[in-house]
Structure formats: structure tokens, C-alpha cells
């Protein structure tokens, strides 16, 4: 009778639904070292019983898709930033096992300082560093670890140290730091080396499970495609012949015996006290004003304001947020604009709330201000039923398609023009909006001008614009 002794580790997903369909194979090239390292890590996570509390940070590079394979918590970080993300994840969840999985382009080039600082802080994370001396995903360019004389697409005559410097030995560099607890370089080039690699991976994870400190395993790994070897198995010889002489395997630092299990400092203030310590009023906040008297749809508005750059859509947002602030509400203002100062399109998200605002992003808006036609077409569909739609009819010659919202058309640009400057159009809209909804008394708006308006000489004109907008609405309401 035969018994199964080695099979796909449980810490892998059964299949990897990617693109179209269920895929049971990885996206890696035949013979890729990533797959081998993945298998060793997955096996270790299962055997050490850590998978349930593991969060794996995938990098940018070939292994960007690690989250398709590992059945653990997954986050994909920006290029080179995996150690920084891992730092945050680990500190927020001290009981989790946090792995930063990175290639040499990611870790040693753009993320060179991230890894250095994380190691120097002695973050309680485990880093698996796949070194294959090349940028694989982008098509075989020179990496910081590319060997001297190695030909790549960006070093077609071979890496020349006079031009490109020498390959970086990451383990040697990091082991000179005080904080790291365990640093080892292993290789995948033959069975004996792979046995050591398995052991090192387990040890690094155990170091973290024991709260001993920062651990890193560099894995010399084959890239049959990037190295352009004749057949994938030749990559193993390549590691042995070219990489091992420059990147010797071995333990570079091991303080696991001496290191005391890390204890998070106990005099950390409780979360409830934090806002006070950094001067954010919470419980003791006094809301001077209340929205209780406003009609339901006007309360706690989530506002989207959009138009051409130069129409004052961003400053209208700032104005509304500022007025809300003056009334004691919680507010947020999130601008979104292109690189142009004038022209182009811009919009902003504004929230004014009696409650704490969780996210400044306005997706289902209760108020939409469209200063031009493209804005109306783009944003009216985001309005909730019963929401308020304000359109600048001077610039919009179509009617809204939404019939389930309250529509307030106002020829703001023309009205501003009559006041002498079309750029007051946004304040005309502000006046109209405040008069319509009663969110903030006009008096507060006039006071607010002194705060949010930078060019003080325009205060009287802007006051006039607000009043004109408000009067327009009052007349309209009376006329009905």
C-alpha cells in the first residue's frame, strides 16, 4: 500500500481564477524559481500552522500575482513598497504573520531604501527575496543584482562595473545592521540546496512566530526566460556557475538564540485617548448648529461639484466645506483635477456632516452641481433619487435625463457676467444652494468669505454674487 507523502500544499488555492476561466497552473514560465519558492513557502505555512493568520504582501514584478495562489490574506503593494506595507500591517495586527515577498528589481532597486529601513527598524516581518539577477516581468532588463558581464536587454555588451556599478549583495548589506535577527542566502540549483532553502524558509517564519524580529531569506532563483538559456533546466547550472561565486550561500546573521521575544511597548496610550493626544476633538466636540430642521434630502449632504477648470468648482467646494466647519460640522473636501490650472475638467467631492466622516469619497451624491455640459452628462447618474441637481444653464443647453431628482437650473455664468466678472459664477451657485437648502445661513457665508477668499479685495463682489444667487432662488420659490 502506498500513502501520499507529498502533494500540493493546502496553503494554495485549489484553482486560480484569472482572466477567463478556472486556471490550475501558475502564470510563471516553465522552470521558474518563483514556483519552487512558492511551494516551499506554502508548505511551511501549512506545516507550521500559520496560514490562517498570514498576510502576504505581493510586490510588483513577476510575482505580482502571488495573491492568486496563496490562500492567505493578501495585499499587493506599489513597486518596492512591500516592506512599508508589511510594517503597517504587522503593527496594526501584531498577532498576524506578515510576509513581504519581493524580487530583486523590486527589493534592491526601487525598494532599496524601504527594505533597508524596515530591516533597520527590526520590523517583526519575514522577507522572502527572490534574486534572479534580472528584471523578468518587463522582459529581461539589467537589475541591481545583474552580474558583471551579464548580458541583458539594457546591458547588451554585458554589465560593465565602470558604467553600471557592481551587483548589490543584499544579505551582506543588511546583516551589517543591528536589528535584523536572521538573514540567510539559499539557492535552488540542486536538491541539496533546495533542502537548505526549505529549512531556511521555515526558520524565518518561525522567527516571526516566536516574535524574535526581522528575518530575511534571499533565494537564488532561476529565470530561464530572462537568461535565455536553451532549456529551463540549464538555469540551474547557470545559478551554480555564475551566481554562486558572487552570491555565496550561507547564514549571514542569526541571533535567534539570543533574541528575546519582542513585546510591544505597554505604555502605548489606549486608542480612545489618541485623538486627544494629537489634538483631534472627538467626544467633547460641540456641534453649534444642527440640521434637524432641514428637509431630509438636504441633511448631511454628499456633494459632487464639476465643471471646467477656472469655473471655480474647487473653490466652491472649499467654500461649502469651510462654512460647514464654521457651523461645527464635520467636513471633507477631495479635489480631482488634471495638471491644467485653466481649462480641462475638474471636480470635487464635498461632505458636510453631523457625524464623523469615514471616507471623503462621494459616490452616491445627494447634491450635484454641474457647471458645464460634460459634467452634467457624467455626474447626474451618480445622484441618489430625490437628490438635488443644480445646473448652470448658461453653459448647458440640454435638460437632465434624470426625472427622479429635484432640478434647480440657474444661469449662473450670465448672472455673474452682469455683476462684472464671469468668475463669480461659483458664488452665485453657492448663494442659490444655501438659500435652497438652508444648510448654512447666508450671514455665515458672508463671514466665511473672509476666511476662504484669498483676494480680499473681491469680498464685496463675492458677497453680491452670493446674494444674487440667493435672491434668484427666493424669487423662483415665491413665483411658484
Amino acid at each position, binding site marked *: *500500500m*502506498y*500513502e*501520499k*507523502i*507529498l*502533494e*500540493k*500544499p493546502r496553503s*494554495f488555492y485549489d484553482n486560480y481564477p484569472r482572466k477567463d476561466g478556472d486556471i*490550475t*497552473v*501558475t502564470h*510563471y*514560465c*516553465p*522552470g*521558474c*524559481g*518563483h*514556483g*519552487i519558492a*512558492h*511551494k*516551499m513557502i*506554502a508548505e511551511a505555512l501549512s506545516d507550521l500552522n500559520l496560514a490562517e493568520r498570514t498576510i502576504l504582501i505581493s510586490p510588483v514584478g513577476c510575482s505580482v500575482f502571488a495573491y492568486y*495562489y496563496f490562500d492567505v490574506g493578501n495585499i499587493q503593494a506599489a513597486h518596492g513598497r512591500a516592506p512599508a506595507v508589511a510594517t503597517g500591517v504587522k503593527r496594526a495586527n501584531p498577532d498576524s504573520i506578515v510576509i513581504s515577498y519581493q524580487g530583486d528589481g523590486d527589493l534592491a532597486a526601487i525598494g532599496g531604501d524601504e527594505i533597508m529601513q524596515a530591516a533597520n527598524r527590526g520590523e517583526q516581518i519575514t522577507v522572502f527575496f527572490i534574486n534572479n539577477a534580472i528584471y523578468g516581468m518587463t522582459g529581461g532588463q539589467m537589475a541591481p543584482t545583474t552580474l558583471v558581464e551579464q548580458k541583458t536587454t539594457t546591458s547588451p555588451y554585458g554589465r560593465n562595473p565602470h558604467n553600471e556599478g557592481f551587483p548589490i549583495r543584499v544579505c551582506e548589506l543588511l546583516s551589517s545592521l543591528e536589528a535584523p535577527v536572521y538573514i540567510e542566502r539559499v539557492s*535552488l540549483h*540542486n*536538491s541539496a540546496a*533546495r*533542502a537548505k532553502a*526549505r529549512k531556511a524558509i521555515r526558520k524565518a517564519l518561525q522567527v516571526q512566530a516566536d516574535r524574535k524580529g526581522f528575518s530575511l531569506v534571499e533565494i537564488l532563483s532561476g529565470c*530561464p526566460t530572462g537568461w535565455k538559456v536553451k*532549456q*529551463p*533546466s540549464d538555469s*540551474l547550472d547557470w545559478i551554480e556557475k555564475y551566481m554562486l561565486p558572487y552570491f555565496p550561500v550561507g547564514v549571514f546573521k542569526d541571533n535567534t538564540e539570543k533574541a528575546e521575544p519582542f513585546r510591544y511597548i505597554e505604555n502605548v496610550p489606549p486608542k480612545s485617548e489618541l485623538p486627544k493626544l494629537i489634538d483631534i476633538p472627538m467626544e467633547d466636540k460641540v456641534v453649534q448648529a444642527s440640521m434637524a430642521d432641514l428637509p431630509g434630502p438636504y441633511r448631511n449632504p454628499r456633494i459632487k461639484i464639476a465643471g471646467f477648470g477656472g469655473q471655480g468648482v474647487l473653490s466652491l467646494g472649499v467654500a461649502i466645506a469651510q462654512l460647514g466647519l464654521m457651523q461645527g460640522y464635520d467636513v471633507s473636501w477631495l479635489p480631482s483635477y488634471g495638471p491644467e490650472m485653466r481649462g480641462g475638467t475638474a471636480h470635487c467631492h464635498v461632505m458636510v456632516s453631523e457625524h464623523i466622516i469615514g471616507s471623503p469619497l462621494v459616490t452616491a451624491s445627494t447634491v450635484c452641481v454641474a457647471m458645464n455640459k460634460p459634467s452634467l452628462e457624467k455626474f447626474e447618474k451618480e445622484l441618489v433619487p430625490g437628490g438635488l441637481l443644480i445646473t448652470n444653464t448658461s453653459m448647458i443647453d440640454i435638460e437632465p435625463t434624470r426625472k427622479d431628482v429635484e432640478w434647480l437650473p440657474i444661469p449662473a455664468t450670465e448672472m455673474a457676467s452682469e455683476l462684472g466678472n464671469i468668475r463669480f459664477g461659483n458664488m452665485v451657485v453657492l448663494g442659490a444652494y444655501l438659500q435652497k437648502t438652508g444648510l448654512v445661513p447666508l450671514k455665515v457665508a458672508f463671514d466665511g468669505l473672509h476666511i476662504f477668499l484669498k483676494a480680499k479685495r473681491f469680498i464685496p463682489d463675492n458677497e453680491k454674487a452670493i446674494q444674487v444667487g440667493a435672491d434668484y432662488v427666493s424669487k423662483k420659490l415665491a413665483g411658484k
Partner: protein
Amino acid sequence: MTEEKIDRGKIEIDVDECKGCGLCIVACPVSVIEFSRDIINKQGYHPAQYKGSGCIGCGNCFYTCPEPGAITVYRLAKKQS
């Protein structure tokens, strides 16, 4: 007892998960894995296949195979005394 020699191990290779890289063929200390010449799998590779006998159940092929589920290794259960 029969004189027939029973292998210590055996392996199964999933035809469609194998990418035909050949790392297992190089890693096998008893050379019992080969490329299949007449099979082209779903991915378009000639997958590796077990020659059918001689496996010692060492697991070297498993740890060199980059695909999570392509190779499964079995070992002869110890006889109960």
C-alpha cells in the same frame, strides 16, 4: 514472500499542470522521469511522465517542480509488524 521487487515510492504527474520544464527529470536521482514524446497537453507542452517503475519516493522532483499541484509523491507504507 514473493521475489517480486516492490518500489519504495511512486509519483503521479498531472498531464495538464506540467509545463514540460524538465527540472524534475534532472532532479531525479534514479532517472525514472522522462518527457512524453507522444502527448501534447492542454498548454501545448510535452509533459514529464513517470517511467512506471524504480521510484524511491525521495521527493526531489516535488521540491523542484515549480507548479503547485503537478507532482504528487507516494511512499510505500511501512508494513505493520
